[in-house]
């Protein structure tokens, strides 16, 4: 089924501008340090420096990208030596960077979408006294994310992996005076630790088998490893990807992560960080090509999550949580594509790229709506915002059309390829991916109907208004990206990504749509129609108390919190008290009874110590008699 001989691209040594690729990481890190150390002194100019952190990086990334386009294809993967990190015996880990087609694409996405979101944040966080700290954390995130995607080995990738986890934690609980935000941050941190365990186990296994965690060396050595261990590494990496990308069963943190400021949700929890799991799987494609079981597991996780996310998205009333469920669902599509193998990897990144645009666009649009509605997120209190917020509505509509996959917008192409690839891998996956597309159309239509169309259901004293230009500008740019990127990148991206994903592209014309594409489009139109007909009716201001079980489960995040509470909190507690009981009864019991026995024996023996010298004498005589008897009997025997 899979081609056994893989083409592994060996990176060439860095020359020219590539030698300075480390500045991509160093510059935002420097900005973070300045903003955090300067403190209140930088309040007046901190946000401008913060934006410069992202924009400067974007410029450098574009320069590197242009340089790479000018390079011949075999020499496009570039190794940038930075420093020796650690040497233990004969084993050495270097902190080097790898700039290739995949990582430069990520760098462009992170810094490009990042720059827009940074600009937007100037307006969104204008009234927050801690705006400077917010920009410091955002820059920390950019530095960590670029470390993640530019690392040339799993150990350095892990540093970035933890770094984005830290930045995510800091930003989710940015408004830490709200208890729910503090709790959500902790939850995200804890669930991510479970995934980290997977990545650590994968690294340990690689060290044990190959003595190296360098991507290139692992890719070369992997085919010689025992099949069981290849599968194990694949599963470990999948666990890591599940944690970071909020895939079932480690999805529960993403919905709570919406407690963070909306630009954070857009940048970290929609466009970039949560897609790190997809990056990890695509980057490790050489491993997954050799293990059918692990790549099948990736596909199953992807399909389950794309349906679970759509389910959650269909039931929530909170606009950000609908978008969060939708993010889970779209990342599920990417995981599905990444699990398909070389043919899917490029499409996974394609969808990741377009999703980065249209989802960031919609999150920022939701932020704009919240800004207008006095930070209310309940869609039941919206309605009819189309007229008062025309720019937000227009840009949001582009994102909406893109995500449900209306041609010729971006989502149509990227999702279409995944559906076709899934269909070729197995009809079950293809059908489920199509159903997911229909549900996506339904819940996004529901969101549009409840937010922008229909009747006014505004709370008293709310006077919605369009957001300032600094917020609308990024929305427009992202909306244009959502509209045109599909056509622009449709064929180019898979040719571009062919070397790092091991894919042999075939020509994909933007006007050619296979039958699966038409079928999906039909289902999408059906979903839109159902959504329109259902939510055309008046919507209650308050959520109904009694709902059917499907809605109930969706509203409660698929009962994941209840499950975790029951199994891990209560179960873990029971296990701990069980162990405490064993310690108390058996271990302590043994020690205590030994002490008690010795004491009791002492109490008995103490009585022989009478103080009467005659009784001592008797004891001595008896002892002597016994010894004599033993001696005599021994002599006789």
């Amino acid at each position, binding site marked *: 089924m899979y081609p056994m001989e893989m083409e592994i691209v060996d990176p060439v040594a860095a020359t020219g501008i590539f030698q300075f690729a480390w500045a991509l990481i160093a510059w935002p890190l420097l900005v973070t340090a300045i903003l955090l150390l300067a403190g209140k002194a930088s309040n007046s100019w901190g946000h401008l420096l913060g934006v410069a952190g992202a924009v400067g990086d974007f410029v450098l990334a574009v320069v590197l990208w242009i340089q790479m386009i000018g390079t011949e294809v075999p020499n496009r993967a570039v190794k940038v030596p930075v420093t020796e990190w650690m040497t233990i015996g004969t084993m050495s880990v270097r902190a080097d960077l790898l700039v290739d087609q995949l990582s430069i694409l990520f760098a462009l996405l992170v810094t490009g979408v990042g720059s827009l979101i940074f600009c937007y944040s100037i307006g969104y966080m204008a009234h927050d006294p801690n705006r400077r700290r917010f920009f410091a954390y955002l820059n920390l995130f950019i530095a960590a994310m670029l470390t993640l995607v530019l690392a040339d080995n799993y150990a350095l990738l892990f540093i970035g992996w933890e770094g984005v986890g830290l930045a995510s934690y800091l930003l989710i609980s940015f408004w830490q005076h709200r208890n729910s935000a503090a709790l959500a941050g902790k939850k995200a941190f804890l669930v991510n630790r479970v995934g980290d365990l997977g990545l650590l186990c994968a690294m340990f296994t690689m060290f044990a088998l190959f003595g190296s965690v360098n991507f290139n060396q692992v890719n070369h050595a992997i085919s010689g490893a025992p099949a069981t261990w290849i599968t194990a590494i694949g599963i470990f990496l999948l666990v890591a990807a599940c944690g970071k990308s909020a895939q079932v069963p480690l999805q529960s943190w993403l919905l709570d992560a919406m407690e963070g400021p909306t630009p954070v949700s857009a940048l970290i929890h929609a466009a970039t960080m949560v897609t790190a799991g997809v990056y990890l799987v695509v980057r490790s494609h050489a491993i997954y090509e050799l293990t059918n079981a692990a790549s099948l597991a990736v596909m199953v996780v992807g399909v389950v999550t794309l349906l679970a996310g759509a389910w959650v998205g269909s039931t929530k009333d909170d606009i950000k949580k609908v978008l969060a469920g939708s993010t889970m669902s779209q990342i599920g599509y990417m995981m599905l594509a990444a699990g398909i193998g070389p043919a899917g990897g490029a499409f996974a990144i394609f969808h990741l790229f377009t999703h980065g645009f249209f989802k960031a666009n919609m999150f920022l649009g939701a932020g704009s709506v919240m800004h207008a509605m006095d930070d209310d997120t309940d869609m039941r209190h919206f309605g009819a915002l189309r007229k008062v917020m025309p720019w937000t509505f227009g840009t949001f509509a582009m994102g909406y059309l893109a995500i449900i996959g209306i041609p010729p917008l971006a989502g149509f192409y990227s999702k279409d390829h995944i559906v076709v690839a899934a269909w070729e891998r197995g009809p079950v996956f293809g059908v489920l991916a199509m159903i997911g597309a229909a549900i996506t159309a339904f819940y996004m239509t529901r969101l549009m109907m409840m937010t922008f169309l229909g009747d006014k259901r505004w709370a008293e004293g709310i006077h919605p208004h369009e957001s300032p230009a600094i917020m609308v500008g990024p929305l427009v740019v992202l909306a244009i990206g959502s509209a045109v990127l599909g056509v622009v990148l449709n064929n180019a991206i898979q040719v571009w990504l062919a070397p790092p994903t091991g894919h042999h592209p075939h020509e994909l014309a933007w006007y050619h749509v296979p039958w699966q594409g038409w079928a999906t489009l039909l289902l999408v139109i059906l979903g839109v129609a159902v959504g329109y007909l259902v939510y055309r009716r008046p919507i209650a201001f308050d959520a109904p108390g009694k709902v059917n079980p499907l809605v109930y489960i969706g509203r409660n995040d698929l009962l994941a919190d209840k499950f975790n509470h029951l199994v891990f909190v209560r179960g873990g507690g029971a296990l701990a008290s069980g162990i405490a009981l064993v310690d108390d009864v058996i271990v302590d019991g043994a020690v205590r009874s030994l002490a008690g026995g010795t004491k009791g024996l002492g109490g008995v023996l103490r009585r022989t110590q*009478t*103080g*009467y*010298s*005659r009784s001592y*004498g*008797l004891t001595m*005589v008896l002892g002597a008699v016994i010894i004599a008897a033993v001696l005599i009997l021994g002599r006789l025997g």
Partner: protein
Amino acid sequence: MDPNAYLILSAILFTIGVVGFLTRRNALIAFMSAELMLNASNLAMVTFSHVTGNLYGQVGAFFVMVVAAAEVVVGLAIIMIIFKTRRSASVDDQSQLKY
């Protein structure tokens, strides 16, 4: 000369000493009984020396005598002091040393 007679005498003396030590309360009598046991063993050792034809037993007897003499000095002094302070020479009255 039959050495068994000496050994039997030694055993009789030792037994008298033991019984005396265990039955009499008076410290001086107990002391005398202890001396009797020591001398019974001396007699046995001298007899063995005679039987085996070397001097080891006799040397041992001398050692016992020397130690017994020293013991008498210390022991009698203790008994004197106890009698002076407690007006009693009964060994059963002197049971506080267990503390």
